[in-house]
């Protein structure tokens, strides 16, 4: 095989891996936030992604954000609005469903409190998936913009090697980085972010400080949902979606969170990037259809061999 083509393929895979990885990273941050504060594995996180996609489409097309602001900016703004919508949905879901089975009595227990939460979020996942099917129908959708199918060409090494930077994905990646940065600032610098971390660290001591742990959990859940929803809205600009789309990404999210270390919110971001790279690089040597299986296998390997991931439980910031 031509050396140039080989290098080009590798570079392309690297680039795509990084770009897609950043977006995965943002999805993972949402899941990790919920887990680190509430110790809940949210099986329905993929559905928050899905809801974000539909909400973004709604804002873009129905509300006319796309017409108002143009396709590029419009799609981004629609994703952010989707985040707001899903934030509200997440808060309501927390109050109705999760509050009874989580909270001070359960936070911090490594054994007993699990299964009710897991099965509850599993039920929620089924409900949202199939409810989505009823509400939205099964035909695939995208937020179609001219960006989705055009790319910048970047000559590398000035020669016959060019990288094709898909515009929609690249824009999505940049927005992702901005959002992830904002989340990091919120968690590490803001008062409410610190309160979240305190509640995650030691719920009982947090109560002694006057921190309402329930409020912290609600914020974590709603924000986690919103973050994944924004990522979804961005993905919707280049990836077709239907109500079951969550299933396609859920394993990416789990793998990223576990790889980053299950207690670490920003570690999950790096975990997501790694998964993106693994996925894209694997296409160089494996058939397309095994892409997802590869992620699963990586996921299983991490869980079995190094469950604490790269950054472990007691990680520092960012």
């Amino acid at each position, binding site marked *: 095989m031509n050396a140039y083509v080989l290098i080009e393929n590798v570079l392309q895979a690297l680039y795509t891996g990084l770009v897609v990885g950043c977006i995965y990273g943002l999805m993972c941050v949402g899941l990790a936030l919920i887990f680190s504060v509430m110790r809940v594995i949210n099986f329905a996180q993929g559905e928050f992604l899905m809801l974000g996609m539909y909400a973004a489409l709604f804002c873009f097309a129905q509300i006319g954000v796309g017409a108002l602001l143009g396709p590029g900016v419009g799609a981004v703004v629609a994703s952010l609005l989707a985040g707001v919508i899903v934030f509200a949905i997440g808060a309501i879901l927390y109050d109705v469903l999760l509050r*009874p089975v989580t909270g001070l009595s359960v936070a911090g227990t490594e054994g007993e409190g*699990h299964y009710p939460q897991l*099965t*509850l979020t599993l*039920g929620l996942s089924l409900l949202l998936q*199939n409810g989505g099917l009823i509400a939205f129908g099964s035909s695939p959708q995208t937020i179609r913009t001219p960006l989705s199918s055009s790319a910048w060409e970047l000559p590398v090494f000035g020669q016959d090697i060019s990288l094709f930077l898909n515009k929609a994905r690249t824009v999505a990646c940049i927005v992702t980085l901005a959002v992830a940065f904002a989340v990091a600032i919120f968690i590490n610098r803001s008062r409410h972010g610190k309160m979240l971390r305190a509640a995650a660290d030691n719920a009982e001591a947090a109560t002694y400080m006057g921190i309402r742990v329930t409020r912290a959990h609600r914020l974590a859940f709603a924000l986690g949902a919103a973050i994944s929803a924004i990522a979804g809205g961005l993905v919707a600009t280049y990836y077709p979606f239907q109500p079951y789309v969550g299933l396609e990404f859920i394993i990416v999210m789990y793998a990223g969170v576990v790889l980053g270390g299950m207690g670490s919110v920003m570690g999950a971001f790096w975990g997501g990037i790694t998964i993106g790279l693994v996925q894209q690089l694997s296409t160089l040597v494996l058939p397309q259809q095994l892409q997802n299986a590869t992620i*699963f296998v990586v996921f*299983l390997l991490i*869980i079995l061999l190094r*469950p604490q991931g790269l950054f472990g439980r007691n990680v520092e910031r960012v």
Partner: protein
Amino acid sequence: MSNASDNVPFAWSVAIVVVAIAAYVGLAWLTPDRYYQLIFTIILIWAAVGVAFNLFSGYSGLLSFGHAAFFGLGAYTVGLLFVNAGISPWIGIVVAALVGVVAGVVIGYPTFRLRGHYFALAMLAYPLVLLYVFQWLGFQEVSLPMVRKAAADYMQFADTRVYIAFSGVLLAIALAINLYVARSRFGLSLLAIKQNEPAAMAAGMNPLSWKLKAIMLSASLTSVAGGLYAVVQLIVTPESVFGLLVSSRALIVTLFGGIGTVAGPVVGSLILIPLGEVLQAQLSDILPGIQGVVLGVAIIAVVLLAPEGVLPYVMKRVPRKGATAGGVLALDTTPYVRETNAPSVAAPMLEVRDIAVRFGGLQALSKVTFDVHPAEILGIIGPNGAGKTTLFNILNGFIAPTQGGVRFEEREIVGQPAYEICRAGIGRTFQIVRPFAGLSVLRNVVVGAFAHRHDEAAAYAEARNALERVGLSARAGVLAGNLTTMELRLMELARALAGQPKLLLLDETLAGLGAGEVEHMLRAIAAIRKQGVAIVIIEHTMHAMVRLADRLVVLDHGEAIATGDPEAVINLPHVIEAYLGKKWADHAAA
């Protein structure tokens, strides 16, 4: 063969199951509509999967989110053997059973090392990996060909009602196995491991071995169900057999009906599957995916409103006979007075030598040395954080010391796993008693006897004997959930005694008991010693310890600072200092 007086005999239970299923099949036989015949068949298959799932998850307490792996492997085994090798499904299903056993071990062995979330996530991943792999392998659609001649040899029947009967048989077998397990040593051992794994290990059980047996059985049955499913549907796709809905369905019908109960999965299936299927059939054009909604709503409702499941919820409202038969145990609350004891001159039974343990930067124990003589009561005391529980965990086999040795009856026991140490003759009680609330006292206690009695009859005999030794015989048939704290403590003691220990480690047996109850317990413990059992006890209730123990060992900051006669030890200046602080000791001395 059952020894418990609180249950319907096994043969009767099986008879009820057979009759009920036969009735169901009979009624279903009357349906002319092929679609409904199919639904009736599917209900039974999913019920069987639920029962198989329950066999593992209900008893072990490990929720498997990935049983679809076994189901799908079974379905593909039957399908592929038929399509590619022309092998009849009759044989294919047997092979599927074996495939299930192997898959159970292969999946279980590495995954059982994981806890909590990690276990759940890993189990979730397995069927989904298989889904993608099978898609890639090109098995998107495996259709079982219709056979014209000798169709019955290939498990194909023109009258599709036959499949209802087959599924009925499958369910009956699964239920019979479940009923057997429920009252057998297998089931009780798994329950014990679920309730409190460390305690189960201390009682002589090897958790990994039991869990593997459970998953092998469960996986095998699930694979058979998958094989039957392939025969009924005549088509196998990765989504339909490995998909998340398959795993979820098994889990949801079981949790909905009542996990850990025999009838739970059946009840769950009978309610949810028809509901979902019928709604799906009638409404799928306006409400596609209604099945998933039904399952989702069902599980959410159950978790929020009736976490143990519909069946237990309903049963709780029905008054049970024999629940409070006999009334509460009468206690002898007169103050316990120790009979004078000559110090034991027999050779030590337990020799603890220079035990040291480090956890990270903390030296939890250092240079701890003492002996325990036969039929002696040795008390281990010391201020908070002194290392008492750590010491017990070493004697028990839960942790290994970084230095030093422990010899029991002349044999070194450091490094042996807890269940081996139990079988060697060291028993242990635990502070937090978690009984099987829904089982009788006798059933709770017999778990302790399984350590070294493989014969069930002998084990039950030893359990009764143990109950007598603690004075709880009158309450043997009572459900543990109805006991008082005191009775629970005595039951825990009986459980440990059922293992015929020569040395008993008691962990804060008196904590939280009222004044009269303490006296009764002291007497019970002294009685055990009189029967020749050596006792090592950790306690904070000092006024009781001083009267109970023959000798005391005082630990402070991980070191044994005093050993000897109780009255003498508690008046030693450095012991007083350990408890009350230096200033007090100085002040008192002055």
